[in-house]
């Protein structure tokens, strides 16, 4: 029986094949919803990654659409210097400067009270 394998090609197993790597799965719960990150699966290639994503994130009919992305293909940015700069950059926000602290300081200096909101007729 073992000799039946005599015709086996001598070439070694492709080292690159069969190496597991992580794939990120995004799922859409129903038509019109955004794609949300669901989790990840380990797979050696895209075809099996999609199969496994289907099993993990779709077999109970909990998804109508899946995206499966090799984690290594994702361009990563998590640098706090770039994403959370230390200086006040609130002027870049749509709302402009945050005025609450400055107003409070000006009132303090001039001795005024914070005006109370009108409640009904005075």
């Amino acid at each position, binding site marked *: 029986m073992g000799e039946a*394998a005599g015709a*086996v090609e001598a070439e070694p197993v492709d080292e690159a094949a069969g190496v*597991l790597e992580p794939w990120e799965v995004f799922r859409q719960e129903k038509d019109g919803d955004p794609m949300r990150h669901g989790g990840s699966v380990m797979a050696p290639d895209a075809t099996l990654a999609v199969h496994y994503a289907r*099993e993990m994130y779709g077999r109970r009919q909990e998804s109508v659409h899946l995206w499966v992305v090799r984690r290594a293909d994702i361009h990563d940015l998590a640098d706090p210097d770039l994403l959370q700069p230390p200086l006040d950059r609130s002027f870049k926000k749509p709302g402009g400067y945050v005025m609450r602290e400055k107003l409070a300081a000006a009132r303090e200096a001039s001795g005024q009270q914070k005006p109370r909101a009108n409640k009904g007729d005075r």
Partner: protein
Amino acid sequence: MTESEPVERIAMDFTDAGDGRERAIALLLLSMADDEFVIGFSDSEWTGIGPILEEDVAISSLAQDELGHAQALYRLFAEVVADGRDADAVAYDRPAEGYLHARLLDHGRGDWAATIARRYLYETADAARLAALAETSFEPLRDLVAKIRREERYHLMHVEAWLDRLAEAGGEPRRRLMVALEAMGPDAGTVLALLPGEPALLRHGILAEPFAAVESTWRARVDGTFGRLGLAALPATRDPGTARTRHSHAFRALHHEFTMVRGSEAAATW
């Protein structure tokens, strides 16, 4: 034709009512249900021991799908035969020799390559059989076949992906695949072997074409794939007359296992 007698005897055992049409439908349903049940139960043995966690979940889910198909087919069989048995009684309360699954499924799950070889041969044959039933005149079966085919599409994609990988990897994976295919090859065609009720199935529009024609379609598909992968062509079917009878010791062991819990307390309500 004397070789076919055991199947006919089993077929007669479950109904002495109805015309040839009902008997032929019952025999077809039972053979399909037993195929799905046996491969489903057998593949479920991978639960917890799959090659990787993701594949463990995948093969377990596929096995559950097959058991689900078996359940639906057993229910339909029970309705057609109407002898007081429900789907569970049909599935679990027969002696080992009363099962009509194809001899291909008497090969145990084996190693991963054997499981893939068996799944590939069975799923492709089953797909050809389901295609020949897609327009069946027996309406409940037509509805069921439409649902089953939608799930089997994914099953085929899964097993073809694995077959390609094992065959193209070379070395040990390819060697194991070839060993499994050589052992199972002569039994592969048993899934599409002639059923005694075939003339009635064709006459009443239950089956679109003879099993021999379904088998040719299936062989052309498998030959194409095996040719592309450099695998040896499938041999002719061995002993087609006993394609669904005289089951192996491996099946008797499996039967003992899947009837054990239900058999432990015959009067119990589960």
